[in-house]
């Protein structure tokens, strides 16, 4: 009974974390190339709404997912154009787009509020799903959840194990030297920002078509900001970014377990649903604070360096800076 409960909880945690994984991996790709796409919260809302609206009208979940990806890619294209071609402040454009996306999603989504609609079918993987414990947690899910696993693995492999991935790192770290070696910096930045945006769009679709079905006002509740924080938390490394997403999922699951405990009966439910957001962000700030520097200074340098590398990552050298070709 205890084990069964644990397996069930973990299985729903893995599913519930999939939009966060997809969004933060998408953002990792874009930031690795040097572009901050701060529009995430609005992108996710707008793509979640679009995904549901298209799936609802056409009856096809797959068309819904594609439409959501297109919306995410389009938002990222605006960010890319503003920051690469126009050299505007990336944070400013992203923030305004985040607000625009939220409002637009509310306006256009109005006819679809609280309508029952299609969802991504449950699809256990044969054989693998029958493996005890791990099977039901990882392989008794739907396609979107598997895509979130795939996104992590493929992104890691692409960035660290392939030739184009090496170029991607160069473009984000030292755009000037990448350019000197004949890499078209700005074209690659466009491509990776848009690809990252498409993943963010898929995150939106996974919200409205798989995790929290349908559409309602503020349906995606601040998930984009958490994804952005998790990218920093994970030090721009796909595996650690994924770990951060599951940690956030764990906090949320703990919240809903604690909420059912009679000892917390007079704590309002809103607190349990928003506490994980605050906790996650404060954890991030704590880890990157100067206090940790001081603590690490007390340890022997070798150990300190290891711990530092394990808990913190350095942003790509060219992050947020437009590349000017002289």
């Amino acid at each position, binding site marked *: 009974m205890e084990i069964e409960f644990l397996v069930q909880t973990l299985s729903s945690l893995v599913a519930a974390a999939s939009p966060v994984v997809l969004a933060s991996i998408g953002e990792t790709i874009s930031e690795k190339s040097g572009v901050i796409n701060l529009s995430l919260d609005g992108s996710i809302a707008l793509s979640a709404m679009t995904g549901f609206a298209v799936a609802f009208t056409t009856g096809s979940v797959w068309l819904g997912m594609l439409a959501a990806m297109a919306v995410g890619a389009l938002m990222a294209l605006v960010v890319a154009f*503003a920051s690469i071609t126009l050299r505007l402040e990336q944070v400013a454009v992203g*923030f305004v787009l985040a607000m*625009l996306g939220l409002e637009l999603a509310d306006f256009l989504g109005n006819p679809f509020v609280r309508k029952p609609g299609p969802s991504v079918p449950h699809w256990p993987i044969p054989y693998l799903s029958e493996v005890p414990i791990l099977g039901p947690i990882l392989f008794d899910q739907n396609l979107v959840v598997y895509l979130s696993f795939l996104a992590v693995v493929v992104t890691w492999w692409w960035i660290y194990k392939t030739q184009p991935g090496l170029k991607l790192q160069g473009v984000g770290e030292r755009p000037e030297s990448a350019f000197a070696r004949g890499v078209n910096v700005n074209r690659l930045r466009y491509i990776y920002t848009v690809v990252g945006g498409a993943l963010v769009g898929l995150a939106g679709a996974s919200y409205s078509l798989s995790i929290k079905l349908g559409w309602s006002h503020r349906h995606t509740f601040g998930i984009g900001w958490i994804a952005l924080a998790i990218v920093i938390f994970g030090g721009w490394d796909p595996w650690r970014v994924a770990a951060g997403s599951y940690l956030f999922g764990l906090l949320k699951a703990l919240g809903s377990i604690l909420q059912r405990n009679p000892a917390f009966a007079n704590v309002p439910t809103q607190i349990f649903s928003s506490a994980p957001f605050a906790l996650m*962000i404060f954890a991030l700030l704590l880890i990157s604070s100067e206090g940790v520097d001081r603590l690490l200074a007390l340890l022997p340098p070798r150990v300190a360096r290891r711990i530092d590398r394990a808990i913190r990552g350095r942003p790509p050298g060219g992050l947020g800076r437009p590349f000017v070709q002289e």
Partner: protein
Amino acid sequence: MGPRVKDILLGLLPILLALLFTTGILLAVGASPWEAYRSILEGAFESPEKVADVVAACVPLILCGVGMCITFIAGQWNVGIEGQIILGAIFATWAARNLPWPRVPILTTMLLLGMLGGALWGFLAGLLKVYGKVHEIFGGLGLNYAAQGLAIWLIFNPWKPADGATMSGTDPFPDPAWMPRLGHLRVAPLAVILALLSVVVVYFLLRGTRWGLELKALGKNFRSAFLLGVPSTPRLLTAFAACGALAGLAGAIRCSARYGRMIPEISGGQGYLSLLVALLAGYRPQWVPLIALFFAALGVGSPRLELDLHLDSSLGGVLEASVVLAVMLVGGLRALLARRRAQVGMEEAA
């Protein structure tokens, strides 16, 4: 066409582009753009009562927008402003519930405490920025979640209303804690005066004082200002606290003049809107009231869309955000064209 006329036309271009965008969206959902814009304007200006509502809605936008000018000039994104509004409201509510004083002392105390609460929360955001080494947007968001949680906990537990309907907020304040209104109109003259006063004060603080100039230097080029001896940490912390104080004042006014109680949604997104206001104003306080008026009219007028046309009121928000985006993009395009022209000029000279 003189250069001045050209500048005005170029200044209006983003507004036209944004209107074009919302018109396209209205056509896409099969609504009449003409009817929609007319119903927003009617909803905002059809009667003296509505005009009073618009003026009242300007107050928090002006206070927070002017505050955001301070932090933006220092190069900081004070996204924590929502939480600063909430803390101001919480501090003011505490006074209203616990101090059985006559009107003048209680209102003064509420407003001052509101400013203190907001300033404290702003100061915290500043500390997270200075010592947290992560973009201040995240510290601000974390503090917003924390402030919202605190407000909800207070309303659900110690400040629970007698009828238990917690979602509509605390019990109404005692009469002296209500800010006097203009007859039957829902606007408090004192609040409007305070808001306009804040514009004047901040305008001169930023232009005419060493503090303001040092903030500007930090915002323009943090590193060289620091190297030239501008004390960056105290300047940033005071900038955050000053913005927080104005936001806290807005929170106190929202409790006292608008709702007469503390409600869970007391900040109501006013902080994020004021961020857009300050961006549109180009961080110049003197432009904030006019832009706040535009935003306030959209805010008061657009709920009418739901009644008249069964459209969602968020169209107002879409228009606001797209105006800001259009201003940025048009500005960027003009700079791009200027760069191209300069390049061509240089090549011809060579």
